């Protein structure tokens, strides 16, 4: 169910990026797509009632030999979170570039409407 909602968010972003005429809205659409993917990654690693994948002193003392089992059965998968951090940094980079190109285009054309920014043809 949650996955379906996440996919819906992705499709909303795609729709927004493809259909909208305003450059800023297109950028927002692309960002929604990327957030949907990030959300999806986080949900992959999530488990209800899970615990942080960090082993403290008391865990070692309390559980003893079953540490690996505890880790596998209880903890949240840490890998997707690392992936999402990387993906966020990358999308920040591309967002900054996209916005700066929008600003430069606005300076040149005086509009954000892509139907009026049409010098390239053929």
């Amino acid at each position, binding site marked *: 169910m949650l996955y379906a909602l996440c996919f819906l968010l*992705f499709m909303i*972003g*795609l729709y927004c*990026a493809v259909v909208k005429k305003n*450059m800023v809205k*297109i950028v927002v659409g*692309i960002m929604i*797509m*990327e957030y949907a*993917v990030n959300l*999806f*990654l986080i949900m*992959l690693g999530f488990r209800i009632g899970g615990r942080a994948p960090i082993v403290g002193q008391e865990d070692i003392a309390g559980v003893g030999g079953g540490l690996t089992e505890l880790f596998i059965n209880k903890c949240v998968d840490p*890998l*997707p979170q690392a*992936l999402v951090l*990387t*993906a966020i940094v*990358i999308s920040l*980079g*591309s967002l900054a*570039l*996209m916005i700066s*190109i*929008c600003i*430069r*285009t606005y300076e*040149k*054309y005086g509009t954000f409407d892509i139907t009026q*920014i*049409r*010098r*390239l043809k*053929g």
Partner: protein
Amino acid sequence: MSIPLPVFIAIPLVTAFLLPIFGKKGKGVATLLANLATISLLVLAVASIGQDDRVYEVGKWPIPLGINLVFDGLSCLLLLAISVVSAAAMFFSIRYMEQYTAKSKYLSLFLLMVAGMNGVVLSGDIFNLFVFLEIASIASYALVGFGCEHEELEASFKYMVLGSIASAFVLFAVALVYGNTGSLNMAYISKAISRPLNPGLAFAMGLFIVGFGLKAALVPFHAWLPDAHPSAPAPISAMLSGVLIKALGVYALARVLFNVFGISVSIGWILVALGLLSMVAGAFLAIGQWDIKRLMAYSSISQLGYVVLGIGLGGLIIARDGNVAWASLAILGGLFHLVNHAVYKSLLFLTSGSVQMSTGTRDMKQMGGLAAKMPVTRATCTIASASIAGIPPFSGFWSKLILVIAAVQASFYWVAAVIVFVSLCTLIMYLKVQRYTFLGELPENLQQVKESKGSMLVAMVFLASLCVIMGLLVIVPTLKDSILEPAVKVLTDGLAYSAKIIGM
């Protein structure tokens, strides 16, 4: 001595971040450093021919825990193509980029793009591949808009929107693959996938095809390319058309489909269809163009169709349990065409840059008679045109010949007919370039045109001589066995990739 793999990524990456320090005053030093970086990459790539099948574990984390870099035949081939084209384009930029400001920023973006592409072809980890893909893409978005004029900004925005959508698709597919297999290492994913694919993985494969197809500008995902490639400065057009669409698009697609998911009949047909569509549509659209760089950009789409067609045909034959020799011939044709196209298309874009710098226009209607004024540009452009049109003995002839032979052997006669037909269209479009640019009457306002000088000529002559001798790659058995055959074998072996990497 075997060359440590991270060097291929580290050299351009470190140099890229050093260059902006020099700023305006140290422009000469920055240019020198950047050229040293690309030339040393070329030397290293040539030196590492034949050292196939090596795995480097980043940070000494054993796979599948850590990230790994894999160097096999296919990576080696792509690495060679990237370093040849980037060395030539960088050398060309020494003089060509004098007309722009902020040269050191340009150089560092250029090197970032090279680092990203080298990372993509070396990575053995699917998420790491995505990261390097984004490094190369973001650098290329910025480079397309480097001139900051109306058309360049518009093209850059268009390219960036479609490129970002493609990246989101690829990331989504990576997430789906991780959710289904619990691994990010390509070899382990390939081991964990049960075939036939479950719906989640099949969907991921579809996303990969669309994502990488957008990056490779295959028809019907090609809308950004004819705007983006002409708008970039000429050396960057050469890089984009020459290697970027191949490393980010075709290589990644082939790697994921052949080595990770495994090729099937339907996927083979999809690749063949994409290839044929790109070839025909690209060629038809190119013939009508009057902007010299735009014509070349459309022809890139068409030529990339050949590469995808060859690889897809090979995959199709393998998936049908056909003759492996025919399949490897088709893939050989595709990969050889990939390398050839990297060389002659970048040369064509460099010559167009040379023409544009001298005449100040890209419109072929305003040119003419430049043959007498710019003899070297004319000669190199003619060699590249002959090569792309498939006139023997230039390189393009051999790869197209191999593709035709492979198609006929596997009894795809109509495919062979289409290949020959598109080749004729290519001949027509480059005759048009020759006729309107270099022959005919010299217009009044171009009487003072001078030949380009120095580094631009050296880069063009270097690539032109490669065009002439590249045919040797298939004729001389030792060269063929050391460069092309290992790359073909990576794809024909398909899923054996996984066992090979895990076994090392």
